[in-house]
């Protein structure tokens, strides 16, 4: 458990957090978000509702895993404790992950997957906008690249949420059920991070998360209003720790670490 102790010292002990520690937490939470949604959505590969959609969701999942790999890579450079991107991705217990609680929901049916993607991609987009001019050059450069790819994700998921909402009947009922289940956790993607004042002071982010969240809620509110969908509720239990994860995530974690655990230290 020595690695976890070292992780804890980064993510859990925020006393007097300097901006490098805050940067590490930002990178880790973003990387975990992208990794978890990417891995989770990849479960649709081969069983997507139609062939084109199977290809599309697989592409989106692949993009997110690539973004996670690059972000873990930046984190590895920042922390420099000998762990590489794979070490960060796979060698932590479930409670060592900092992804948003929204992504602790299982992928569910297609409507749930679309609802989760819509809520996540729009929130992630607000976050990427806030760090697009980051003072941390490697992050700024990576984000410039990622935003060009995420534009396609947003177009795609926007089309889908409109389609499900406008279709009525079972499609709309399933979307409403998914939004009801996930709505209270939607805001967790933009929940404040420890040390974020240091991030803003050093120009890593242009604004605190509360400002990103307000901007995101306005945007989602406008879309939901147009589609006649209920307004998003405020975040439930905002003080619940980021590391308190669901059983669904524990199962997912057991699966994505399976190969890594089966032969410790093995390389391809």
């Amino acid at each position, binding site marked *: 458990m020595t690695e976890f102790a070292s992780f804890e010292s980064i993510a859990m002990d925020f006393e007097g957090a300097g901006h490098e520690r805050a940067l590490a937490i930002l990178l880790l939470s973003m990387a975990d978000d992208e990794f978890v949604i990417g891995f989770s959505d990849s479960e649709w590969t081969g069983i997507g509702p139609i062939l084109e959609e199977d290809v599309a969701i697989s592409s989106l999942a692949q*993009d997110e895993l690539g973004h996670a790999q690059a972000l873990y890579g930046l984190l590895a450079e920042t922390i420099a404790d000998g762990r590489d991107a794979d070490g960060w991705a796979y060698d932590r217990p479930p409670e060592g992950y900092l992804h948003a609680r929204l992504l602790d929901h299982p992928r569910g049916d297609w409507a749930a997957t679309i609802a989760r993607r819509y809520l996540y991609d729009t929130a992630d987009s607000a976050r990427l906008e806030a760090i697009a001019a980051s003072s941390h050059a490697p992050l700024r450069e990576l984000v410039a690249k990622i935003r060009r790819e995420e534009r396609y994700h947003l177009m795609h998921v926007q089309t889908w949420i409109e389609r499900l909402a406008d279709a009525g009947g079972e499609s709309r009922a399933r979307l409403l059920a998914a939004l009801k289940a996930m709505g209270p956790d939607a805001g967790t993607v933009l929940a404040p991070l420890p040390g974020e004042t240091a991030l803003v002071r050093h120009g890593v982010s242009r604004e605190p998360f509360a400002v990103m969240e307000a901007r995101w809620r306005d945007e989602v509110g406008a879309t939901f209003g147009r589609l006649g969908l209920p307004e998003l509720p405020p975040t439930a239990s905002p003080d619940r720790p980021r590391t308190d994860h669901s059983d669904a995530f524990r199962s997912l974690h057991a699966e994505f670490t399976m190969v890594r655990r089966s032969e410790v230290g093995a390389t391809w």
Partner: protein
Amino acid sequence: MVMTAPLPTAAAVRLLLRDVVDPEIPTVSIVDLGLVHDVRVGADGIAVELLPTFVACPALEVIRSAVIDALTALGSPVEVSFTFAVPWTTDRLTNAGHAGLRNAGIAPPADPVDVRCPFCDSATVAMDSMFGPALCRSLFYCRACRQPFEAFKPI
């Protein structure tokens, strides 16, 4: 007395890079794809910096070893790295790159309304799906020659 070979020039390196092709699109070199960001030659070897088309592109490691293979003949150690210093965009494709894509049956990047069939050049085409068999491509269908085809995504 140790004889050292003269250092290769950056131009010689770039010339050899024209022979390295994209593993998925063998009609287009990495130079015409616009992947080559920088070439530096020094006493300790050749450093080539490449720009990934997509962050998650699975072909990067194949391209890295192809570059090393292509430059081995120059007799200097080769180091290949990937950078996001500037984002790769489809504007970096050269005219030869566009022609190479068409030869592979892939429409060059364009606004979806301006995409033309790479087989019959018809403009009567429709996008079937924004996402195709690779991250960098969309799926289209040509109503004139009734061929499905792929188009490079503008990014």
